[in-house]
């Protein structure tokens, strides 16, 4: 697994994307076949849920996540989850079509069993641990090979290992403007970020070097 800092060659990256996606498509969904006349059957929400979780994984594993993509996937995940939560209490209706009217629910608090993937993104040190643990855990997130029973909610139990603290802190890592501010005062960034965890004042060069080593050195952990 490449560390976060190493840029994979474009061809490699595309290949890896394709193989990951292909794997996913093979396992769970009928791949859209150009020969087929009809449009593919809509996925049950549980598969969509798993797909979204996978996308989230994948998106966050990338060097620098695409924030728009991430936000849209998370919002879709929340919708699916609310829909599934509501459906799991009353008797399960037949496989809902995509046009199924969504329950107008406020942002329901996420179930503990469907907690977040990555809240340790807020610490760079933690990221590598997370990454390695994800690569091990990914096989667990595969839906059961016996095929999905649309009448049953997704087997969330297998996801519990991955999901720890809810979606809090999901986006914490993205904003590192706290690092941008005090440490290098000659760099002017956006105004207003005062959340500095690092004492910017009075750092001398050797401390700076040490800090740099620690930050860069976490790659190899």
């Amino acid at each position, binding site marked *: 697994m490449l560390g*976060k*800092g190493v840029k994979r060659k*474009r*061809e490699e990256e*595309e290949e890896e994307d394709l193989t990951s*996606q292909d794997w*996913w*498509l093979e396992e769970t*969904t009928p791949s*859209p*076949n*150009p020969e087929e*006349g009809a*449009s*593919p059957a*809509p*996925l049950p*929400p549980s598969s*969509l849920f798993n*797909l979204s979780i996978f*996308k989230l994984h994948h998106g966050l594993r990338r*060097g*620098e996540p*695409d*924030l*728009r*993509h991430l*936000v*849209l996937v*998370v*919002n*879709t995940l929340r*919708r*699916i989850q609310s*829909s599934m939560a509501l459906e799991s209490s009353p008797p399960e209706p037949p496989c809902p079509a*995509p*046009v*199924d*009217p*969504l329950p107008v629910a406020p942002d329901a608090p996420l179930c503990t069993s469907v907690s977040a993937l990555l809240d340790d993104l807020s610490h*760079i040190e933690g990221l590598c641990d997370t990454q390695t643990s994800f690569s091990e855990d990914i096989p667990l997130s595969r839906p059961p090979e016996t095929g999905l029973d649309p009448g049953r909610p997704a087997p969330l139990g297998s996801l519990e290992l991955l999901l720890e603290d809810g*979606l809090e*802190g*999901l*986006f914490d890592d*993205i*904003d*590192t*403007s706290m*690092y*941008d501010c005090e440490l290098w005062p000659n760099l*002017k*960034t*956006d*105004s*207003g970020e005062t959340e500095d965890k690092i004492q910017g004042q009075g750092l001398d060069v050797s401390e700076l070097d040490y800090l*740099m080593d620690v*930050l*860069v050195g976490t*790659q190899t952990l």
Partner: protein
Amino acid sequence: MGEDADTRKINHSFLRDHSYVTEGNTPVVLPHPPAQGVSACPDALGRYYLLDAEWVDSTFFWSLNRSSPKNFTPYLALVENMEGESIFEVDSEDGVGADIISTVEFNHTGELLATGDKGGRVVIFQREPESKNEPHSQGEYNVYSTFQSHEPEFDYLKSLEIEEKINKIKWLPQQNAAHSLLSTNDKTIKLWKVTERDKRPEGYNLKDEEGKLKDLSTVTSLQVPVLKPMDLMVEVSPRRIFANGHTYHINSISVNSDCETYMSADDLRINLWHLAITDRSFNIVDIKPANMEDLTEVITASEFHPHHCNLFVYSSSKGSLRLCDMRASALCDKHSKLFEEPEDPSNRSFFSEIISSVSDVKFSHSGRFMLTRDYLTVKVWDLNMETKPIETYQVHDYLRSKLCSLYENDCIFDKFECAWNGSDSVIMTGAYNNFFRMFDRNTKRDVTLEASRESSKPRAILKPRRVCVGGKRRKDDISVDSLDFTKKILHTAWHPAENIIAIAATNNLYIFQDKVNSEMH
């Protein structure tokens, strides 16, 4: 003067990068190529460049292809089409990923057309003045200059590589003989100045022709250096670098009508810059929530009003537009107007939000309307009506039943741009399968056209295409299931005054011209 014209063309076919060392001013001259098979031309650094072009009667396109020495294939076309025939063997499908065009922009007169690509390069095309001698090359665009705008950078703190891909290019209004443009990648905006040099001084007193100091004892009289004409040289130099203004990825830049300031927008913030000041910018919009857990919306595009220097608009991933007035307050977090269309309950799905995300917003030339593009539609908004758009056009509604698959393969996140024509009567946007669509707002007619070599036969007008969704299928119709979703036209531009459009299809640039009706109606 015919030869001079040839020389000028050859000069500009090659890459005039300010950082390259060229051997004097003499360009490498290629023999005029035969119909098939041509030779390759290395630059001073040993890189090979392939250029090919094909001219068809009412359409022509350029294909700019660059390969490193290890990918070298011995076919090169010189940029020449004096006879108006297609003379080159096209070989651009081998183009490396770095050649994928990521932005296209005409300047304010339409004389220049700039493209940016994934490899951080900018290529500027210039329209040849129409001449009666060569009616076929009337108004044709040739390469004017090429330069490396951005290089990949490494952010040591985050251990991330910053892509050199050019996200946007915007031209500054021309104020003197030079042309200026802004180009940006994810993090850094640069101001480039493009100048021409066609004279050089000769007859120095202290230096000889090669620049060596003269032996002063041989100098018996003084002379005044004179300016002599020389082969035209186009020089591009970076004048300003606006760095460290953005934590998130820059998605838009827009030059203000005051010609002194411009704004840059990333996912969560918009900054206002002065063109002459690089060490600070003013934050005018900040939608970052106090708690990042609450993040549900990002900024997707933004633009200044074409006439009112205090007004700008920005769009969001939830499909809303916010018009802001900089006179109202320093921080424009509160919008002056919010444009949002309520969700259609009959079309609701898990993907409703994603397909409502606005990927591009453009003010009309008149300044009265705004054009937005979301995944399935383009919408025209009247600045005076916030509740809903005044016009909605379906780009590819047949994809509505395929949203699930498009979500799986991430196509649903593709960001298409949109464009107005000069008179604001026609709007254009790209789609899949190298199709692009045009909608006439007056007649309500629309057309689907294809940008591809196969469909651009010599001396033929572009044929309208049709996508069939089952049921009756006419000859030449494409079925929805045969659409190639890897061939997407994300970037399009319309000449500010004439019916000339530039279409970027992956790593090919197509320039189409309406020969019949050059004038705007």
